[in-house]
């Protein structure tokens, strides 16, 4: 079976034209996978119990994931770049409001609007440059930075995606960390080529322990908690002082989110003596 990645064939708004959009959405295997992945993503969002949340669905496509969100009693707003996929979603009369847009240019919302965000098999598309002006890392960063601002304090974003290789995983994760998220990868069924699913679980609050990936009986678990790795690397490197400009920018970012931030003073970003 020729398993050429869709991402190698065309940009998503071209690949998911009218025919492909319809075929995709009628494929029972795809419907089932999307539903399962959405359920798992909702679980990983760790929403407070018994509330209806306002969620953002990035790369909502034809609404398969959105329908699962609605089934679980939440409200959602979706974004997708393919008009054909959104047309199919309209035909299916999904409950969420949808926007036609490119998440690589950012998510255009006021700060703190969403209780969480999910994305099912979408962000691997951002790892490929579709035009001369696209720089994948920059687009990923724009997405994560604006998403961080759009999320309410303490909420999470969960991205189920299909990375082609380790370099892509590294790029996605590092841009997310740059944007201020903590978190890491959760891998379900790491030993099964067919069942293996990768979830990037991002948190806006302080670091919290990641759940372990699902596994078959007797298989070894494979959860990478990136914040743990970061701590170890910091210890190995010896803590290098962040530059003052970065500190000022981070404070400004957090102010924009509405957080309490200490006013700037002559002490901001000042080198602390050893053993501070």
């Amino acid at each position, binding site marked *: 079976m020729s398993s050429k990645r869709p991402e190698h064939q065309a940009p998503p708004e071209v690949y998911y034209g009218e025919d492909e959009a319809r075929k995709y959405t009628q494929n029972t295997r795809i419907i089932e996978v999307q539903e399962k992945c959405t359920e798992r993503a909702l679980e990983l969002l760790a929403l407070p119990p018994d*509330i*209806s949340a*306002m969620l953002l669905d990035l790369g909502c496509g034809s609404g398969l994931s959105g329908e699962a969100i609605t089934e679980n009693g939440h*409200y959602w*707003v979706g*974004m997708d*770049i393919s008009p054909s996929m*959104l*047309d199919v979603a*309209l035909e299916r009369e999904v*409950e969420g*409001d*949808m*926007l*036609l*847009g*490119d998440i690589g*240019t*950012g998510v*255009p*919302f*006021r700060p*703190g*609007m969403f209780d969480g965000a999910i994305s099912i098999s979408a962000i691997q598309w951002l790892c490929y440059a579709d035009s001369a*002006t696209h720089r994948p890392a920059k687009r990923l960063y724009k997405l994560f930075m*604006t998403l961080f601002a759009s999320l*309410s304090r303490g909420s999470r974003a969960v991205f189920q995606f299909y990375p082609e290789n380790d370099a892509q995983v590294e790029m996605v994760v590092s841009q997310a960390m740059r944007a201020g998220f903590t978190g890491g990868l959760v891998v379900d069924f790491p030993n099964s080529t067919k069942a293996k699913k990768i979830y990037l679980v991002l948190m806006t609050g302080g670091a919290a322990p990641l759940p372990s990936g699902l596994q078959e009986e007797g298989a070894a678990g494979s959860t990478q908690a990136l914040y743990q790795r970061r701590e170890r690397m910091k210890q190995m490197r010896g803590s290098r002082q962040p530059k003052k400009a970065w500190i000022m920018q981070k404070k400004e970012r957090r102010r924009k989110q509405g957080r309490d931030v200490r006013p700037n003073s002559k002490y901001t970003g000042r080198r602390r003596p050893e053993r501070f």
Partner: protein
Amino acid sequence: MKLMTHNMLTSKGMKNVKEGFPLKIQAEEMRNVDIDYDRDFITRMIPKLDWKALVFAAQCVGHKEDLPDTLPEGYENDNELLKRLHHVLLEVEVVSGCLECPETQRKFPISNGIPNMLLNEDEV
């Protein structure tokens, strides 16, 4: 597009736009839908809303529906207001028309209820 979504949406993706909020609505076709009333959800969303922008949007589409100009104290207990809010936020939809950025006057068309927020290369 529901008015709830409009209350969250900005044109900030464009470079040189500071706030890009609220977007002006020029509605051509509107419709009403039926959504189950969820009192807890509405009560929880209210503090997140930009009330002035909501009233502005409701006026743009001719659905001000006795929404007060400012959010009254003790709104959690005003069932009448909550029901009206539910209607305005979730049941009133703009089917076609456009959204206009308050800073650049750039128009974002809405068709089939979906706003087209795609930016051109030179706007990013």
